[in-house]
């Protein structure tokens, strides 16, 4: 029998006093903590006081693995076709009684039907999971690069982003995604732990070792099979929705006689007069840009294109100036050196003016002007 030397009763009492101050709202006892229980005993034999202690009962606190994965955004992420680095945001909270690593699995395949409204009809491209390394709650490309959660402290949370590219398929409308999280061994900073395996509950506890007990909930409910209770895994669902498939794009063409060589003040449409044509492109849809807008306009018969006369930019006052502040475009089709997002060319054989606008923002207009002379 193991008997400790006597513990003075008063010393035990003062230790207890310290403990009383932290009795409320204590965090979970850390896995691996050794709990000892020893009682002190006093008695008398024939009037002589004696004291002793009990044996010490010991157990090791086992690892109670618990964590949550939730979607941390309202509704689905609204995206446009071809959008790069579109983000859905999740939050992982460690409720285990020790620090743990968590493995992240971006998933688009194992999506139970009916969890989210709508029907999934496309997949995101290159979907990856990244940890919010700088803790600002926003995905920062090139900064949030960690692909697993390292040493998440008990009761701590961290944001995880699923980041992917939207394909350009015109029929794409809705893509569900889910963040699948697997608890892994902690204890080594900057080292990706291996997935934990629960200690077999039918095996006897090897004394003085830390058993692994999964206590995590079924994170998607019993109806859905994406996650089940006590499996050391969690899952949350979100999605990408292409809300706008078209924009209200209009083109208004107008003509203005710039000069006729005779009248300075009110030029007339005389042979040899110069006419400026104005193509006003308007995107009336709020918040959504029209990208890749191409315009082509055949120069009217009995007119001659004025070389180098194409100008593209913000529109001016109708009837006075077509382009207020724009850039002159060259006539050739080689636009490799162009960088302002607008290119144009004139094809002499088909007598066609072609213009390309990279983007026309929501609720805004771009004007394209070119000139001809009347034969």
């Amino acid at each position: 029998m193991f008997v400790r030397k006597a513990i003075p009763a008063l010393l035990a009492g003062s230790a207890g006093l310290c403990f009383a101050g932290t009795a409320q709202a204590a965090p979970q006892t850390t896995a691996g903590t050794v709990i000892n229980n020893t009682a002190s005993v006093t008695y008398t034999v024939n009037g002589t006081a004696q004291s002793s202690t009990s044996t010490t009962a010991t157990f090791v606190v086992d690892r109670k693995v618990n964590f949550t994965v939730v979607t941390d955004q309202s509704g689905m992420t609204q995206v446009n076709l071809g959008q790069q680095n579109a983000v859905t945001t999740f939050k992982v909270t460690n409720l285990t009684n020790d620090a743990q690593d968590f493995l992240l699995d971006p998933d688009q395949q194992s999506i139970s039907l009916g969890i989210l409204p709508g029907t999934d009809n496309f997949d995101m491209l290159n979907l990856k999971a990244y940890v919010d390394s700088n803790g600002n709650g926003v995905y920062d490309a090139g900064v949030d690069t960690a692909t697993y959660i390292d040493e998440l402290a008990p009761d701590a949370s961290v944001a995880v982003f699923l980041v992917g590219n939207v394909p350009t398929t015109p029929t794409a409308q809705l893509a569900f995604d889910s963040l699948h999280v697997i608890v892994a061994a902690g204890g080594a900073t900057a080292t990706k732990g291996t997935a934990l395996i629960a200690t077999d509950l039918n095996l006897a506890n090897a004394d003085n070792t830390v058993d692994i007990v999964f206590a995590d909930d079924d994170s998607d409910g019993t109806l859905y099979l994406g996650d089940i209770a006590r499996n050391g895994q969690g899952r949350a669902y979100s999605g990408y929705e292409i809300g706008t498939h078209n924009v209200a794009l209009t083109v208004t063409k107008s003509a203005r006689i710039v000069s006729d060589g005779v009248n300075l003040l009110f030029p007339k449409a005389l042979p040899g007069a110069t006419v400026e044509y104005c193509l006003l492109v308007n995107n009336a849809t709020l918040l959504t840009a029209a990208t890749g807008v191409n315009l082509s306009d055949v120069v009217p018969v009995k007119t001659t294109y004025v070389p180098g006369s194409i100008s593209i930019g913000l529109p001016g006052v109708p009837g006075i100036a077509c382009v207020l502040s724009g850039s002159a475009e060259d006539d050739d089709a080689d636009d490799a050196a162009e960088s302002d997002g607008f290119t144009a060319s004139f094809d002499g054989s088909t007598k066609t003016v072609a213009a390309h606008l990279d983007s026309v923002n929501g609720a805004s207009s771009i004007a394209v002007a070119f000139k001809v002379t009347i034969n």
Partner: protein
Amino acid sequence: MLRSLTIAAVALGAFPAVAAGPLEVTSRVMVEAKQRADDGSTRVALLPARRVVPGDRVVFVLAYRNVGRQPLSDIVLDNPVPAGLAYRAPAQGSAVPDVSIDGKTYGALAALRVPVAGGSTRAATAEDVTNVRWRIDRPIAAGTQGQFAFQAILR
């Protein structure tokens, strides 16, 4: 109560503890497990604590036995609640212990008050208990044994 403790402390100084005295006290930690009997009834059995995680209930058992030849009297068993555990209640079948929130003053839980900031006090709860103590009023004869137990929750 404080008086008797002081006496105990003095006694410690005067008579150093004997390594193996006539009162043998064994501490064990157990868990409650429901067991279904053949007749369909269930009963709660105590099994050795093998797997304990925060939130689990454990039972600390103190078994005593007079292994000497003399009767023993004035027996007091004082069990500080281990750090990381919160006292809950006496275990099923055990005598109700006196409890303490400071290791000095013992009594029924309902009678204890905890000082709070500002000089006032509030009623003590099981969470506040730091020590559990049993006194055996009558002398126990040689060879007599018995046990006490209390339930606690792992924080």
